């Protein structure tokens, strides 16, 4: 079993806003050197990409297509319980492979060097509700560039959860565990609505009209996905349509729960760091690498587990080198870990149950404010607003009461 390396004292949280960019006290020279060492790994792998990486991704695609055809075939005869169970399992695996090891990685441009239009990051589309082009913006650019910067990285809570102490507590967050369960179950739609910035719409900063183009893209994608999973394939079974329908819905949800679990284990387990906009404004390449290292956490497991996790179980390596072929992450993790040890930096890794357990704990803990006083004030404010509405008072007068 692997354990979290703690070669350095726990991070100091003495900075005024609770965030610090350099908790392990690296010198500017060390940052520079860290950047150089990690760049060297990247260059070496880039130069070494070749047939085996091409064979790998094509092999995964082949397995995914096979599982999908088998799953849909079995679900066609889903009236027989064993066929339904096997079909749903195969289709779930197919969707997991499609989203995690194929879609996510191909869209990062990891296989662009192959010059195959079907593996081009900019053209790839995946089997989920989120349109690929919107994902490329919210994930490849926003999340990977601004990783764990509170206020910039919308993956912190997806706009609906409180996943960091730095997010100001509101009574709404009392529902954190419930919202998280809903988000996990319908994760593909949560991801699809990512760029919609629902919280900004709720706050009145922007309106739905500002996002018309985006919504149109989502509607087209969701329509195609729903037509396939909830109309066409069920229709093939005629009067027994309910079996494939239920199987397809189950497979989508299994995929949702799995991808939510893996993705939330990437940045939210205990020990991962968050950063502030101000402190990361002018970071060097070395500091950028350092932020990626501290903001990410790995999962330990066997080869099959890593493949099903889309190699996001090597979240640290993925965040250092988002466009290296994912099948290389395991190999370079040995070197990355050794580098961390030398620089006295933590290399956050643990088995799924422990990492996810700490995420669940965090979801629960952050449902409540840091101090009981905030809770009372927050609830009081909410009660006042509610009663204000009841009394027919406008927002303005409630503010005046405060």
């Amino acid at each position, binding site marked *: 079993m692997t354990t979290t390396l703690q070669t350095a004292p726990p991070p100091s949280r003495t900075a005024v806003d609770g965030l610090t960019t350099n908790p392990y006290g690296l010198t500017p020279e060390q940052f520079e050197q860290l950047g150089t060492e990690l760049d060297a790994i990247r*260059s070496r792998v880039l130069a070494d990409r070749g047939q085996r990486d091409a064979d790998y991704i094509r092999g995964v695609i082949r397995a995914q297509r096979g599982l999908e055809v088998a799953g849909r075939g079995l679900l066609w005869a889903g009236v027989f319980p064993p066929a339904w169970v096997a079909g749903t399992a195969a289709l779930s695996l197919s969707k997991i492979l499609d989203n995690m090891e194929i879609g996510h990685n191909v869209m990062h441009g990891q296989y662009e060097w192959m*010059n195959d239009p079907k593996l081009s990051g900019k053209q790839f589309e995946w089997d989920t509700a989120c349109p690929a082009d919107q994902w490329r913006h919210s994930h490849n650019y926003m999340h990977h560039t601004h990783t764990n910067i509170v206020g910039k990285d919308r993956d912190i809570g997806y706009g609906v959860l409180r996943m960091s102490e730095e997010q100001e507590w509101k009574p709404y967050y009392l529902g954190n565990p419930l919202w998280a369960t809903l988000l996990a179950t319908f994760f593909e739609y949560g991801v699809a609505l990512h760029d919609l910035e629902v919280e900004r719409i709720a706050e009145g900063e922007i309106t739905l009209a500002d996002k018309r183009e985006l919504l149109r893209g989502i509607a087209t994608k969701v329509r195609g996905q729903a037509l396939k999973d909830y109309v066409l394939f069920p229709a093939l079974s005629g009067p027994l349509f309910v079996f494939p329908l239920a199987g397809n819905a189950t497979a989508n949800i299994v995929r949702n729960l799995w991808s939510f679990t893996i993705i939330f284990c990437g940045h939210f387990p205990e020990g991962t760091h968050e950063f502030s906009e101000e402190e990361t404004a002018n970071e060097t390449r070395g500091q950028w690498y350092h932020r990626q290292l501290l903001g990410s956490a790995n999962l330990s497991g066997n080869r099959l587990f890593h493949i099903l996790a889309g190699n996001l179980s090597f979240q640290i390596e993925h965040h250092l080198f988002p466009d290296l072929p994912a099948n290389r992450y395991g190999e370079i993790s040995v070197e990355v870990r050794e580098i961390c040890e030398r620089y006295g930096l933590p290399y956050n890794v643990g088995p799924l149950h422990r990492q996810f357990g700490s995420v669940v704990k965090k979801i629960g803990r952050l449902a409540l404010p840091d101090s009981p006083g905030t809770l009372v004030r927050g609830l009081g404010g909410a009660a006042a607003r509610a009663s204000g509405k009841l009394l027919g008072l406008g927002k303005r007068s409630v503010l005046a009461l405060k």
Partner: protein
Amino acid sequence: MPKLAIRPRLRLLEAAATPHGLDSYLEQVDPLLVLGECRAEVVAVERGTEESVTLTLRPNRAWKGFRAGQFVNVAVEIDGVRHQRCYSPACAEGRGGAVEITTKRHPEGLVSSFLVERAEPGMVVGLSPAEGDFQLPDPRPDSILLIGGGSGITPLMAILRTLFAEGYERPVALLYYAPDADRCIYREELERLTAAHPNFQLRRSYTRAPATGELDGHFSPAHLPQADPDFTAAETFACGPPALLDAVRGTWANGLEQRLHVESFVPPTFVPVGEPGEGAISFADSGVEVANTGESLLAQAEAAGLSPEYGCRMGICHTCTCRKRSGTHKNLLTGEVSSAPDEEIQLCVSAALGDLTVEL
């Protein structure tokens, strides 16, 4: 019409295969089954001289055929990377059947070396629709003069084979320039054709073996009177290296140009690598060309008034990825230099070394 009956069913199948498309499932069964992409299987490999190989390709259903003289892009995968090169089929046109291409090994030619060494029956290659205005016109001209140099004979061979397959009986001549008799591609077949068709005249010049062919030396206007038909009346097709074509163009002046069709046939040469601040950058889709300042292509595109998509501006997110058509670029992060044509590059971390064309 059976096609109409199939279409709605295909649309349903495509909807069921969303988002990857039907072809991505069909190709798992057999790469040639795809409907929307032309591919071909290598069915025969003939290694002629030690440095050349002739491949017979059998295209799938997506292939629309070619006209004699046209070229196709053939794509092969070498060490995981797809490379594309153009070749002129040498076989007779029509019939939708096999396509024959010949390639000669070039010292810098990755694809030609690969095909010469490793092509074998059963291999599947990508095939583009046929392109090029250099083609045998319909109806067939009254007399035809063909001028070829080196590998440039392949489209001319397609023209000759097409003509004789159709029973063409009017005058046709070929002036062919090769280094020596051993490197005269299709020598036996050409001699056979000469014997079989009295209306065909073969005039060869072996430029490195004087006095062994019907002609001597590189192309000169003095060679023309030795061929029937008369070059001023014939429809002329010339294909070969640039020097040959320049000499031919110089001769076909004063109104004769209309009867001259040329196709340059240049072996893939190493792209000259310039300095960071040298050359010009051409943004092909916008028709903008600027002098290369050596900065990142993204910065230069923006300075030129274009607004390419971008994200991180540090080589992470691949939002600004575009296709480079030609030229040499340097990756500013890794220092890696690449001259490969048709390559996806990240504008924000790529700088041009000399002339470069990018699809933007």
